[in-house]
């Protein structure tokens, strides 16, 4: 009875698979918390916390990767909703740090938000959230003890994620946008996160300007610096 257009089948299968896998991830996380509670292992000083942090970080990564894949697939097929709107930037950033709070705590990283609380900006919050969550997740992975998320308005909005890690490899910075070339199976760098960030940035357009991302070394914490420019 139901007649679906052909190219919709894969999208449906992909969406339901992602749904299913995300349910599994949710269960994993929940079971882990349960185990920790049951065995009174929630003491932050406990040695097990490091492993817990790893489990949380990895499941977060899987989840984020799934989201990005699905979004990219939809983008290719003109099925990705793009609905930019005005948002309070501070609240938006704060929410991304809330999502990763457990992870920040587990790795003992201090994450500071230096954004004017009254600042409203125009962007698609759903899509940018996936980007920020991914970049922030990476920053947590590579930083030693501190991350600063800041913003500035030049003639457009710039969101910056500074970490105090080793910085991006020169090779990656040199790619200047061709992040798919950065695929390196041995280091585990798939290029997905940056490719996705670039795609989402470029969906944001205003008058004749198009959004973009920039990778730098240095920044406020003398580590890696990721910038997303939203016109």
């Amino acid at each position: 009875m139901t007649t679906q257009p052909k190219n919709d089948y894969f999208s449906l299968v992909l969406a339901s698979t992602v749904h299913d896998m995300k349910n599994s991830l949710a269960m994993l996380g929940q079971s882990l918390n349960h185990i920790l509670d049951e065995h009174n292992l929630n003491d932050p000083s406990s040695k097990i916390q490091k492993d817990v942090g790893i489990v949380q970080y990895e499941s977060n990564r899987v989840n984020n990767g799934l989201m990005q894949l699905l979004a990219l697939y939809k983008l290719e097929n003109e099925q990705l909703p793009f609905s930019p709107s005005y948002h309070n930037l501070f609240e938006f950033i704060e929410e991304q740090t809330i999502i990763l709070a457990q992870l920040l705590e587990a790795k003992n990283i201090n994450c500071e938000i230096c954004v004017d609380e009254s600042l409203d900006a125009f962007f698609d919050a759903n899509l940018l959230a996936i980007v920020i969550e991914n970049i922030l997740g990476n920053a947590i992975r590579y930083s030693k003890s501190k991350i600063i998320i800041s913003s500035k308005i030049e003639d457009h909005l710039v969101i910056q994620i500074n970490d105090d890690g080793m910085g991006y490899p020169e090779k990656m910075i040199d790619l200047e946008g061709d992040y798919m070339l950065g695929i390196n199976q041995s280091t585990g760098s798939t290029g997905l996160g940056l490719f996705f960030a670039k795609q989402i940035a470029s969906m944001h357009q205003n008058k004749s300007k198009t959004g973009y991302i920039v990778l730098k070394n240095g920044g406020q914490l003398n580590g890696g610096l990721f910038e997303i420019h939203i016109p």
Partner: protein
Amino acid sequence: MFTLANKNTLIIEDFTVFARSVKTMLYSLGNQSVEIVSNAEDAIQACRVKKFDILLSDYNLGESKDGQQLLEELMVFGLLSPKCIFIMLTAENTSTMVMGAIEHQPDNYIAKPFTAALLKSRITKAVDKKETLSSITQNMDKKNWLEAINQSRLTASENPKYRMSCLRSEFKCLKKLNKLDDALNLSLKIIAEREVPWALQAVGEIYFLQKKYDKAVGVFKNMTKKYPMNLEAYDCLAQTQIALGQSIDAQETINTAITKAPKIVKRQKTLGSIAEENKDFNTMSNAFRQAIYQGKHSALSSPDEYVKLTYGLKNLISHNGRDLSKDKLVVEAEQTFKQLESKFKNDTGTIIRSNVAHAAFSKAIKNKEDIDKYSNHAKKIFDDFEGVLSPQVSLEISKSLNEIGETDFAEAIIKEAIQQNLDDKDFIKQISNFTQDKNLIQNCKKAAQHNEKAIFYFSKNDFESATEYFKKASTISPKNINIALNYTQALLKLSKKSKNKIDILHSASDKLSELNRMETSDSRYARYSELNRLTQIMLSNSTLR
């Protein structure tokens, strides 16, 4: 400080283990009163029994209704208190807005998996927004558009964070007040700053209402190109294309939207109607088939899609007479009639409609016996029918009756429809081609004029002249419910200052008793019963003295 401690929360989630984990999260946030149900039907039942403050519903609820259908039914049945927060739990955070053309949006979305801290953040934000905007929504619910505009401006100045929501409300109110120029200026001003999708669409909507169809098409086409997943723009574009007489283009437009989201019943029905106009009976049948299929769990499904499917199948058979698939189509049509008459068995109007459609279908498959069987059945029910058929249904029925040669019956239906809807000028114009009785139309026009005049006098508090003209209108058109109600209302007013108080009240009571078999589902029933109550009170007061 916002607290969850005193809130009643309902979780709707078919995945029990996950539901329990959300419950644990809520406990950890201090929320003690949490109930869990696993499907939409149970959720509706729970909401009938208890007023919840927070509803957390999964979007995918397995076989039956989904979270969006649940929200719609709760809204339509009035089961959500104005303060209740509805948060949709989704699998992906890019699925919001996909639906398009949905009237009821959840207060917030949250993508799985999520942490307790994020859940708290989303609930807090939804509550804050709802509370901040409540003075606007309350006025809009009461249709106090001017006051709602005042509140929008006030709220926007005090809470710059919600400026856009306030502007959107202001736009809606201006549109309701038919202040189209102001509404257009407001939306143009917003998009001059940034191209906010809803404001861009709003510009097109106003062009449409101003009948500047070419400009509207330009706006909507631009939107579908830039925001291909904003499906409401396709609906608007198709509507404009129809206004321009481009029904083939309109069909293609709606079709594109449907490929992107096939689950929306309303859009499938639109496609079916456009395809009917285009005589594309294959698409027509398929669209109504889908409308039935997608709405099968919904309490809001209507007889329309069933009846229209049978007409689509009938046309398919008539136009491809020797096709091998004919037998299959006949079986499908018979099944559809069966489902229709069992699903809406208490709706007499629909049973009449179904029997007439069935007779017309029997003609297409050249079954003479069934034509008579079903048309006689319809006639028998219609003779005792006290309800009112909608204008469009009357038209559909009389067309089919003419087709099968039941011209007298068709005329009776039309006569009734004209009497009931004589104030609907477009409809009278449309239906006048279907009746031979030119006198009827003339009389109706007269009755409508009397009615208009009477309303004018009523508004000037001249109840004597008002009653006089309502009486004239009612004499020409005794079955018209609107006129009868207007007439009694004027009589009640008149009686207050008159010496023949009791006589006047008696004639009001007589007029109302002619309507005493009005169906309680009729939208005018509330007015009827209130007038009835007043009349009886006034009568007993004056006879006592």
